[in-house]
């Protein structure tokens, strides 16, 4: 069980970061949220710290990364213990919103309990099946899929095997492994390898599992907190039967972690808008930044997240001075991982497929708007891949139905409780990919066949959340969430 050390340490680090941020928060079901996010946030932070340790000390990067992460953990622990302001909130930290259990048993409460129990049984069965399949697929393909072998784990080997030569991963001879790709996943893998002193085969699939399970559980947390428990359990079960998530989770690609960070950032932003707390805005920004530190697509997402948060704040009736503070908090969180991304792109790996490709803005403009035939091929690609039933189990069809229902019947409610945020995020993410496909340096059919399905993974969980929120009989009122 040599992997337990890095697993527990990254969980504790993530826990401390989140506990510091959320200690005085009114976020519903905070403890559940914190347990879901702790390990991924911890791994992301380890990766960020490792990168700077290697930049600063190269051959001593391994040792320095342990020192940095240790010091950060110690600081967060001391801050949490010494500077906790509100004892009342501290005592209430592990509160789970199970008020419906305490209600006087009436017909509605009984129905809620029955539905929740049935949904829980369904969830246990589906999740058990997912775990069994994941273990089998991972054991037989322990080195993961193509990108895991030749991009993510290859970069992790540079971190682990020879810190003095870690920058070899940015050399042009290795253009096949995309020297400019962000390093959250390789850093998270190398963190455990450095800890264990060997290339633990179990670690990359374990990281993949943490992010996949985390994405499903985030859906559960959001719907449990803002809709109903049974709705969350059904949605989470539905997520774990979607063929695409089942397949790609075991390949150890970075698409699932980026899906996790995009989903967590948007639902945290939604919670931030509803609570109006700056620490949650900071967290939403941090998670968006971590998406950018995971994949290039995350950089695109970070721009959308800024746009969405600006839109959400503009629509909010609070005073402008408060809006400025919240916006600064979001940008502050976003800026931490973005520093890594910019240093990587500007200093370490100056060339890339898009950034650093030497193409001008006008070239990109003519690529996006200049070819009707290419646009048609890309549109057909989206239509074909989104409607593949075996791959998505109807997820995208449900999302478009939810959009129709949302726009026609539930418009007022969606605007009032900011439920439009996940839907707008999905649309912007897909629009971004639609535009980027035009500028791809690769042959368009090849690009669509190899990348489009994976790109659709990124916003799938958000599409699912929006669909469930629209079709569910009633969302919880604000007073019910924050008594």
């Amino acid at each position: 069980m040599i992997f337990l050390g890095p697993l527990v340490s990254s969980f504790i680090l993530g826990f401390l970061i989140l506990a510091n941020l959320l200690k005085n928060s009114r976020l519903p079901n905070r403890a559940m949220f914190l347990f879901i996010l702790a390990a991924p946030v911890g791994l992301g932070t380890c990766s960020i710290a490792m990168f700077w340790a290697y930049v600063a000390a190269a051959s001593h990067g391994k040792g320095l990364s342990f020192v940095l992460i240790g010091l950060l953990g110690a600081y967060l622990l001391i801050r949490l213990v010494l500077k906790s302001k509100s004892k009342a909130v501290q005592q209430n930290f592990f509160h789970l919103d199970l008020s419906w259990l305490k209600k006087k048993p009436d017909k509605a409460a009984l129905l809620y309990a029955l539905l929740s129990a049935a949904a829980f049984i369904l969830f246990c069965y589906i999740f058990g099946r997912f775990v069994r399949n994941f273990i089998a697929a991972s054991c037989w393909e322990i080195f993961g899929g193509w990108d895991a072998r030749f991009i993510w784990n290859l970069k992790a080997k540079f971190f682990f095997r020879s810190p003095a030569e870690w920058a070899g991963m940015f050399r042009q001879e290795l253009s096949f492994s995309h020297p400019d790709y962000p390093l959250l996943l390789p850093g998270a893998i190398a963190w455990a390898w450095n800890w264990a002193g060997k290339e633990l085969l179990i670690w990359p699939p374990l990281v993949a599992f943490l992010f996949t399970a985390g994405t499903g559980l985030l859906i559960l947390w959001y719907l449990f907190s803002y809709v109903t428990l049974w709705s969350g359990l059904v949605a989470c079960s539905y997520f774990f039967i979607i063929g695409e998530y089942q397949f790609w989770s075991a390949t150890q690609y970075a698409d699932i972690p980026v899906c996790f960070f995009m989903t967590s950032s948007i639902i945290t932003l939604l919670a931030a808008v509803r609570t109006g707390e700056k620490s949650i805005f900071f967290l939403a920004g941090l998670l968006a930044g971590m998406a950018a530190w995971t994949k290039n697509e995350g950089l695109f997402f970070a721009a959308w997240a800024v746009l969405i948060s600006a839109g959400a704040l503009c629509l909010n009736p609070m005073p402008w001075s408060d809006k400025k503070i919240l916006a600064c908090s979001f940008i502050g969180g976003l800026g931490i991982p973005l520093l890594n991304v910019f240093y990587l792109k500007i200093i370490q790996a100056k060339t890339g497929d898009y950034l650093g490709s030497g193409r001008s803005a006008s070239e990109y403009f003519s690529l996006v708007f200049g070819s009707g035939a290419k646009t048609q091929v890309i549109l057909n690609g989206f239509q074909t891949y989104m409607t593949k039933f075996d791959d998505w189990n109807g997820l995208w069809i449900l999302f478009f139905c939810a959009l129709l229902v949302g726009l026609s019947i539930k418009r007022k409610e969606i605007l009032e409780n900011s439920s439009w945020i996940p839907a707008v995020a999905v649309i912007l993410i897909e629009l971004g990919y639609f535009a980027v496909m035009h500028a791809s340096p690769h042959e368009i059919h090849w690009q669509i066949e190899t990348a489009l399905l994976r790109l659709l993974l990124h916003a799938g969980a958000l599409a699912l959340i929006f669909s469930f929120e629209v079709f569910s009989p009633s969302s919880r009122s604000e007073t019910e969430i924050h008594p």
Partner: protein
Amino acid sequence: MSKTIRLVLACVFYALLCLLILRSKTPEVRPVPPELIQGLLSGSHRGYVEFGNEFSGFKKYFPEKIHATFLMDFPFNPYAPTIAQYYTAQSYFVPMILNPEPEEKVAIVYCTNHSIADQRMQQTGYRLAAVEGDGKGIAVKI
């Protein structure tokens, strides 16, 4: 929106979802021998072979981490069906850099057979220095 429409929509939606979940196919799972799982959990990796192990024979030629060319059947082409061999070799030899272009003083020759290897060495200006199998070996720049 009236409560009735809302309720009807919700009923249809959840009935459909439950149907989709319950009718979802259980993927066929090849049973995993417990020894493999034990090997992974303990970190001994019993039952697994190191990734790129087919290149282990070449390791003795590189006591120092120098750059080397990786010579394949064809000039480097990322879309070639056998390109995974080069990527696997690079992954195995990290942190040593394997250059797919014939620019380095030493080359790992990894071709399908010796006649293709001879042809490729002639094209790129290498001569064979050590043999590691049919079409495989170490070459040095002429």
